[in-house]
């Protein structure tokens, strides 16, 4: 009866010939399989950069993060993975108080950076965000020259006294971002004229120009082609020598490639944190296993 409509009839044929697949295997497992606030693996560290305890985040009345405790060690690369809506980006945005700009968002729990309360009302958020920089999913260069994009942060934070110092910061940042050789002859050109991959590396250069201690990356490669992605990943490896890097990614292969530890989020819970090698060979939790092997998500 669907023969008149090609798309419907196709679907029908598929349904008839393909073997029945258990539907429950394709949907996200229900929350009931998770113990509240319980994370398997190694969520804690001896020398934490961030120490986060019992973190809860609400959008209005609905909880987005449900009691997560995690340490993030100095100079580690930790990847946050999990299906859409699992709270990984929300959690990331707590770390430099990006959620402050969302009116209905409330953050509870104990969040410390180097032992200091992140949400202390007296804390200078601008200074915090200079220490904890962020790179977003879509490259967002300012509509200014390449030079001015990188120089912007150091200028407003007063990091350079002379033009020559600023020049040095710009050059160093672009070099660290692996971009210097490509742009050194056109520093005055508008940043918006660069390729997507170059723009993203420019945003990374702009982030590191203010000498942050931590770089948060929210799916930094999802708008980039494989070559540009490889460059950014290479950059992450180099930056990890001097910075703590927290990366949210939808690409499990990317998490496997770049991170030291991987944290698996599910419906607002932190289900498992382990060495990346362990997560991708012998995950401890059944949910992690199901997700990374492509059984739901």
């Amino acid at each position, binding site marked *: 009866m669907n023969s008149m409509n090609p798309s419907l009839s196709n679907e029908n044929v598929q349904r008839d010939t393909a073997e029945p697949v258990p539907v429950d295997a394709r949907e996200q497992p229900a929350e009931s399989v998770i113990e509240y606030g319980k994370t398997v693996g190694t969520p804690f560290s001896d020398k934490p950069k961030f120490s986060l305890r019992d973190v809860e985040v609400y959008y209005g009345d609905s909880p987005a993060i449900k009691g997560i405790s995690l340490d993030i060690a100095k100079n580690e690369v930790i990847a946050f993975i999990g299906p859409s809506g699992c709270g990984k980006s929300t959690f990331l945005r707590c770390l430099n108080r990006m959620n402050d700009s969302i009116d209905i968002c409330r953050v509870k729990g104990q969040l410390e950076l180097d032992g200091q309360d992140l949400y202390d009302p007296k804390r200078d958020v601008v200074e915090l965000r200079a220490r904890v920089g962020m790179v977003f999913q879509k490259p967002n260069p300012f509509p200014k020259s390449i030079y001015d994009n990188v120089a912007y942060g150091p200028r407003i934070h007063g990091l350079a006294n002379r033009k020559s110092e600023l020049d040095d910061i710009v050059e160093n940042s672009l070099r660290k971002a692996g971009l210097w050789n490509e742009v050194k002859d056109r520093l005055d050109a508008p940043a918006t004229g660069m390729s997507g991959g170059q723009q993203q590396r420019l945003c990374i250069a702009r982030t590191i120009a203010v000498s942050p201690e931590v770089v948060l990356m929210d799916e930094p490669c999802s708008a980039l082609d494989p070559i540009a992605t490889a460059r950014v990943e290479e950059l992450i490896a180099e930056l990890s020598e001097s910075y703590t890097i927290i990366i949210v990614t939808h690409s499990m*292969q990317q998490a*496997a490639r770049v991170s030291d530890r991987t944290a698996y989020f599910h419906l607002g819970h932190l289900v498992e944190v382990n060495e990346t090698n362990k997560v991708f060979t012998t995950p401890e939790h*059944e949910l992690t296993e199901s997700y990374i092997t*492509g059984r739901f*998500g």
Partner: protein
Amino acid sequence: MPHKKDDVYGDHISHQFNEELAELKTEFLKMGGLVEQQLNDAVQALVESDSQLADEVRGRDKAVDQMEVDIDEEATRVIARRQPTARDLRLVVSVIKMVADLERVGDEAKKIAKFAIGLAEEGKAPRGYVEVRHIGNHVAGMLHDALDAFARLDSEQALLVMKEDKRVDEEYQAATRSLLTFMMEDTRNISRCMSVMWVLRALERVGDHACNLAENVIFMVKGEDVRHTSMEEAERVVGHTRR
């Protein structure tokens, strides 16, 4: 082919991926079946002085080799295209390692068949054949059980196979001693006894390969490598349950 609901490799979102892993398992078990047959036929050819059967075994070894190449290729393709992780990765990696063991068992069977032909030409003299039949049955059983453990993801059965290996070693030592006695009794026995000794050695190696298969099955199921560890450690791994 339809997947059973309890097939732990069959519930991916990607239907194609399910098929590829199922195919890999099926091909591996097919190769296992062929190798089992090779081993049984080789031992039978020897103890019954059946040169024709021995010839068939030698002829079929090419098919075993080809299956090794094909399965390796398929496993490489799965890695390249699917980037398997966790239990899927452990399955693929284990299969790659296990086909090498199966292929070596095939080689041992071929070697036994070669000696069977040589010994048959020299006429019947069943010195040591009782031991060959006995150890042959023993290691064939281990091979069968290891393949069974793979098919059913049964780490406990794999552990039993590992434990059998020690007994095979003991039987091999005992058989060697009795062959030495035959050789000392009558020096004209030496050449034939040496051939039988090589056959026993081949069978003992088959036991080792079956043991390797079993270790890989435990790795697949439990995610822990029990090679080069004590039996107590292997017992702990198998007994220790994951969440």
